[in-house]
């Protein structure tokens, strides 16, 4: 009988590798700018998921799941704080991913706007057609 947590991790990591392959294929080989942007968002979401998994601490015991990095007791003793630090997941990747998502959204909006403008001017989003244009 396979351990369900190991199974979950294996499926998650393999699907992320597949996602990376699909998104890189899309970025390199799809000529349409819109499809490149979609692939870029898949790529950044996969990278964000990977960062979150890196920050994750495995279950130490089935009865003791990891806690979110939020202290619920506002009058803690020093012992409470040490317990909290040992049970909580790594907050640093979460902080990085949080800002990366918003910046990614803003940059995606900018790229969409750029593509829309290119379509208005050149009537195509095919990079091969746009590369042929001169002037």
């Amino acid at each position, binding site marked *: 009988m396979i351990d369900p947590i190991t199974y979950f991790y294996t499926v998650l990591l393999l699907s992320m590798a597949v996602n990376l*392959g699909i998104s890189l294929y899309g970025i390199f080989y799809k000529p349409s700018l819109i499809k490149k942007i979609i692939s870029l968002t898949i790529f950044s979401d996969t990278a964000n998921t990977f960062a979150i998994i890196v920050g994750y601490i495995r279950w130490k015991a089935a009865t003791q799941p990891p806690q979110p990095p*939020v202290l619920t007791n506002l009058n803690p003793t020093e012992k409470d*704080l040490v317990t909290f630090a040992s049970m909580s997941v790594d907050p640093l990747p979460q902080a990085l991913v*949080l*800002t990366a998502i918003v*910046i990614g959204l803003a940059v995606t909006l900018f790229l969409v706007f750029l593509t829309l403008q290119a379509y208005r001017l050149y009537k195509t989003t095919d990079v091969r057609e746009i590369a042929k244009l001169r002037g």
Partner: protein
Amino acid sequence: MMSRVVGVIVITLFITVFSLVIALGGLGYVLPPESVRELARQYLLIAYNPFNKTFTVFSPEVVTSIVWDFRGLDTLFETVVFYLAIIGSVALARGFKSSKPEKDISQYGLSPIVKTVTRVTVGMILAVATSIALHGHLTPGGGFQGGATAAVVPLLVLVIFSRYYLETRGVSKNAMLAIRSFGLIGIGLTAFIVLIIGLMSGMNAYVFQNQPKPDAPVGLPALFDGQIISGTLWFFNLFEMFAVAAGFTIVFLLLSIPERDVFKYLKEEGGEY
């Protein structure tokens, strides 16, 4: 042809390295090494620690403490990247103007049922967004998330009512630019506020300082009227919400300009479209 070869090489390399990382993990190498967790443990220990007044932020939410205090400069520069992305969109759309509506504004948009439901939910969405942003130092959330939630409101109104309705309510590009500038100025001021207080009172202080330090005894209070505000974190979250919500609204407004108005402008500029 060359780009195809480079593409194949890059994809192969990337997937090989990624598989190697996973395989090493499966073989029992701990990635990342355990010593990396020491940094996280320190952050978790001192984020809300009344016994360690030298480093604590007095925020029970450790992620927000990292975002706006321990690694605050990173977040400031990420806000600058956000600013540049929005400014880039505004620069691309310079000169675009939406024409006047051809019929009564109430004629545009979806059915009255959808409009009534939207009128009710818009207030609720704004309330949730504000609570996400203003409780960012207590519970998961913060200025980025609250602002992104609040930006759903103009998007909903754009789709369900119309662009013209939004403009009659005062949500124009220039108004949103003003609100976003207000938010960004607020973020800049909050970064310098402790330094300004320190200079005025003649005491030592740092840029991006939050709580008092042993060699810099000024700082913003952790409590306000008995409620935790964690010094500068509450203000950062508030201003970031304004900046993010208004920034997204600008791009939504620019994207919703009717195509015929854009082409009218482009023709006036001398192009053949």
